[in-house]
């Protein structure tokens, strides 16, 4: 006798499915309308790739993409250095003077409204320019500092959660055998937490690429980032060119996420296989 294996999904499962639909349907709509040949985003007039061509011809957008990518690359790299140091200090150094201050300054940027962060950093830069003469012009450098600061908080959270999971006995063994702390850090700790560093770097990179408000405050006439260009266009109303750009962004992020998932799964199954081999004999 065949019994039906269908059981109605529980309330929470149903909510999960509906929630994911809620998260993804608007993005699907964005993607679909990027192929619309009409200028009116909301009326379907046939399939066309013309907005992608126009996007590629838009020099302002291309220049802004390049600016944003450079800022994001340098901000993410610096944020990984600072955030890892902060995470290491907080998880490995026990008590020290300034620990409460450091941990507050690592958690507060995660929730601080962007208008406050942006305004306060701009006023700092203006004040610095008056006192020490730098930065005379605001632009990529000031955005880089601003992004590094809030991104390093995110990196610190990602890395410290990994540092807490790591088995400390290996680090202690290395130190007991006479390895100096710096050598232990670079040869033992760093390789072990490298996946978290990569995750932190990617997170910082996307956060920097995405930031509009803070960059608008601290930027000068010299530097226009991609979100600034998108925002000034979107303010005027919907435009299919922005849909095309959105589709490319969604595609890139999905691809990167899929690759990350693939490698995580592969390393996990390798680890399991290694464990099984150890147990076998």
């Amino acid at each position, binding site marked *: 006798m065949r019994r039906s294996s269908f059981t109605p999904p529980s309330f*929470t499962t149903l*909510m*999960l499915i509906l*929630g*994911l639909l*809620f*998260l993804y349907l*608007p993005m699907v*709509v*964005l993607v679909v309308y990027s192929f619309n040949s009409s200028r009116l*985003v*909301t009326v379907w007039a046939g399939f066309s790739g013309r907005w992608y061509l126009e996007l590629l011809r838009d020099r302002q957008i291309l220049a802004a993409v390049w600016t944003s990518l450079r800022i994001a690359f340098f901000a993410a790299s610096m944020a990984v250095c*600072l955030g890892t*140091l*902060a995470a*290491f*200090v*907080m*998880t490995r150094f026990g008590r*020290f003077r300034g620990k409460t201050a450091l*941990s*507050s*300054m*690592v*958690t*507060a940027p*995660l*929730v601080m*409204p*962007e*208008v*406050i*962060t942006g*305004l*306060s950093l701009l*006023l*700092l830069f203006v*004040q610095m320019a*008056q006192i020490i003469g730098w930065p005379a012009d605001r632009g990529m450098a000031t955005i880089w500092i601003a992004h590094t*600061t809030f991104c390093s908080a995110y990196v610190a*959270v990602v890395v410290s959660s990994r540092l807490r999971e790591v088995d400390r006995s290996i680090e202690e063994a290395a130190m007991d055998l006479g390895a100096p*702390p710096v050598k232990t850090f670079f040869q033992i700790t760093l390789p072990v937490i490298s996946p978290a560093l990569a995750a932190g770097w990617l*997170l910082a990179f996307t956060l920097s690429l*995405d930031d*509009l*408000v803070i960059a608008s405050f601290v930027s000068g006439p010299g530097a226009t980032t991609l979100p600034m260009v*998108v*925002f000034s266009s*979107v*303010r005027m*109303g*919907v435009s299919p060119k*922005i*849909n095309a*750009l959105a589709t490319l*962004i969604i595609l890139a*992020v999905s691809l990167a*996420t899929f690759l990350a*998932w693939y490698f*995580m799964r592969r390393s996990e199954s390798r680890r399991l296989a290694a464990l099984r081999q150890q147990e076998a004999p």
Partner: protein
Amino acid sequence: MSEGPLKPTALDRLRRRLRPGRGWVIAVPLVWLTLFFLAPFAIVLKISLSEAAIAVPPYQPILDFTAETLNVALNLGNYLFLASDSLYVAAYWGSVKIAFLSTVFCLLIGYPMAYAMARAPARWQLVLLLLVMLPSWTSFLIRVYAWMGILSNTGLINNTLMWLGLIDSPIRMMNTNFAVMLGIVYAYLPFMILPLYANLTRLDNSLLEAAADLGSRTFNTFLKVTLPLSKGGIIAGSMLVFIPAVGEYVIPELLGGPNTVMIGKVLWEEFFLNRDWPVASALAMVMLLLLLIPIALFHRYQSRELQE
């Protein structure tokens, strides 16, 4: 011999204190964050106490050293101005109201989702987590923009409803507080789910089994066991939504209408349109004061997560 276990720890501590470079390692992140995160607030406070002027930068110095006298001019006028003009009070109140309601909706949608994720088979959990987080890695601006095309009078929803003949004239959804809340819930939902999920996966299953063995019904177990144990996740998730939402600028600017007064937008306009830096600074200081308790709450939970 009796002092055997004590001696190494004392020595350890001494060695740790003397370890060269330790101070430098602490100093690098501490100095950077103090200079670029903490110090700016002092400057905002300072400028909020100065007077606006037509100058570069557009405010008058507080300290003035002329004729061998140091004049300190602290101007409380900006704060009095905020209190006297009903626009600002309404903006603070409106922001808190919209942020609070959005947080409640995020929690109502996000909690069951996080619960289902934590209960899902292990091989599904990573995929589900990535699926929930992926939208937040794309672009905030573009995700808000997506709703402009859906909600507008000639947008997807209205077009569909009119085509189906359910309505004759479009329902006005764009440029309303409803649109703003929808935008906030949509944009911030992943940040609600992430800490909730992290919390719920750590939930000890044996507690739930024990409750069931003792005859507790599912919903009762949820109320008495699961919910109290996930308090930390609820607080963290709610603060991750509420605090940034109070100061939100992009969403009310793009989806809000003339009736949407939110403080982030008012601050932006004071700064960029009116070029009144002192009033913008005062607005930021009051907002910070308002958010101090939520931020402290978030910090308490988060620092427990960071250090254990």
